[in-house]
């Protein structure tokens, strides 16, 4: 996928963080919110704008799980494998997703439709097991219900 160029509104938001000490991570959050990942071109410009070496940016991006270096899918499915969800059958729910989408953890379908990943606790443990579909938390998911969930997602997209 072609890298995107830095659009003005991002350099403006980054500008806000530029004046503040230690805010590289906040600037990276802004970038990821905008693009869904941290594109290489944007990192290059970020290095200039924030006045830090590119290597520092990559050092930080690769340390933190939250940042992606690859573009995500159009639909993002995050299956919680935290303790509460694990005990309530999250591994089976995760397997059902892998099967239904033909993906491994962290994979994206060839058409870029779906990205699948496991996450650690989204703080909704009382309603385990949970899946976060495009930012929306779905509670008490059953493995049998996974195909429907994905079909609904496809239709809405």
């Amino acid at each position: 996928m072609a890298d995107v160029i830095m659009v003005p509104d991002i350099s403006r938001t980054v500008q806000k963080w530029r004046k503040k000490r230690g805010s590289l991570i906040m600037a990276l959050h802004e970038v990821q919110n905008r693009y869904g990942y941290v594109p290489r071109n944007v990192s290059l410009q970020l290095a200039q704008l924030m006045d830090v070496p590119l290597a520092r940016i990559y050092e930080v991006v690769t340390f933190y799980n939250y940042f992606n270096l690859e573009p995500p899918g159009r639909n993002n499915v995050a299956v919680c494998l935290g303790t509460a969800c694990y005990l309530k059958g999250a591994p089976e729910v995760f397997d059902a997703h892998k099967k239904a989408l033909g993906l491994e953890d962290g994979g994206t379908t060839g058409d870029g439709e779906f990205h699948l990943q496991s996450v650690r606790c989204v703080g909704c443990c009382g309603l385990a097991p949970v899946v976060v579909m495009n930012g929306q938390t779905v509670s008490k998911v059953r493995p049998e219900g996974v195909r429907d969930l994905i079909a609904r997602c496809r239709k809405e997209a």
Partner: protein
Amino acid sequence: MGKLNRDDLDRLESEYQESRQERDYIRVGMSTCGIAAGAEPVYRFLCEEIRRRALDVEVRRSGCLGMCHAEPLVEVSVAGAPRSLYGEVGLDAARRILDQHVEKGLVLAGMLASQDGLLAPPEETVPRIGRQLRIVLRNCGIIDPTKIEEYIARGGYQGLKRALFELGPESVIEEMRTAGLRGRGGAGYPAWLKWKLTRDAEGAEKYMICNGDEGDPGAYMDRSVLEGDPHSVIEGMLIGALAIGASQCYFYIRAEYPLAVDRIETAIKQARRMGLVGKNILGSNFSCEMEVRLGAGAFVCGEETALIASLEGRRGTPRPRPPYPAQYGLWQMPSNINNVETLANVGPLIARGGKWFASIGTESSKGTKVFAVTGKVRHSGLVEIPMGTTIREIVMDICGGAEGGKHIKAVQTGGPSGGVIPEELFDTPVSYESLQELGSIMGSGGLIVMDEDDCMVDIAGFYLGFCVEESCGKCAPCRIGGKQVKMLLDKISARRATAKDVTELRRICHAMQKASLCGLGQTAPNPVLSTLRYFENEYEALLQ
């Protein structure tokens, strides 16, 4: 509303109280769990119907009441009928509530939600619900977290006022000492002592930091407090900043909690507008600024020195202590880090006094503790009990015991740093010391219930897998030892191990405990050692 000074606060408190009491209302729980269970369409439906039917009823929103198993929750308070709380409310149920309860005053008994005898959210400022006593969760599920007025109406910012105008920094610390409040983030260090050390340390600047990283998967009380009662944490931060001599505060919150981030940011803006954050707070000569910073999905960043590295915009790797952050923290300046739950205690503690706080709990563990009870239990949710309550009371009485006729085998407290407690020991009263004696820890308050279907070797493997993935790799005992322990556990699970492997397992665990640099590696073996202590038979059954 302009900036407040000390006398405005009391006036507003009674004004807001009166204006709240007069009205009929319906309240919908809108925290992450409520929304996940479908609260948003219910809220919209109620708003539209109330307008269409031209009823004089206000539709309000609130945070999490802690009864997560019964979400979405809807509370109804209309003249002529008892105030009631309905659980698992969908659109059909919402319509019936309007038809019967709101319009005719008839309570729909079959649809009520109840936990430990609670029929409706309580009205006292520090509520009792059956065996529960709610200091930290005093407003959660009761007020609208997006309205500062509602926090003030329930006695909010009175602790700050007393700290500013009656006590001053030194007496605040003295009051905290009398109270005996210990850190709720895991280690249980006395809050007053950390505040005093930071106050006494030399530095051109000092910083007050809130640890909202909540890394233990299965614990979510910090999220609920940040979402459901953000001002309670802000008030605690302000009192702490005053006590240690800081004029800048940082909230470090997990990026996985977008709603919590949003609610805190809104709350800071409101507080600033009313003169509770910023220059000359409540007209005093104390000034203090606040900002939010996000985590980025690294468990180790909950550790205080790693958190500081992350706040400085670097990789979150821990460093050896001492020096402690109280001497050498953010930007090398004296800094104090407290957990969300610790801070939420501070407002009422200072308003009512340290003696009051110290009257709750046990000899060495004062106050209450919030537990997130999840797993194989009927009523999962948040529970806040005075220290000294037994595990049996929490699991069996308050949370309704096992699901579906199964037998509960054990609970795990303290998450990946903690251990299991078998059912035979459920009569242990909860305190920092008692849990440690059992080989577990209080931790942040995750309490995971396991039943007869759960294999202890598998659980230990799960936690170890977590620690291996989250290890920052800086020191060898954790980086290499963790992997070896995980491999041995997998070998046991696959029935390929012998008794010699179990001896080796213990040996590596002890080495990790002694030689790891930070708490992650030091405590990672705990789930293995504690399952070995109480459920060695389950290991043996898998050996060759």
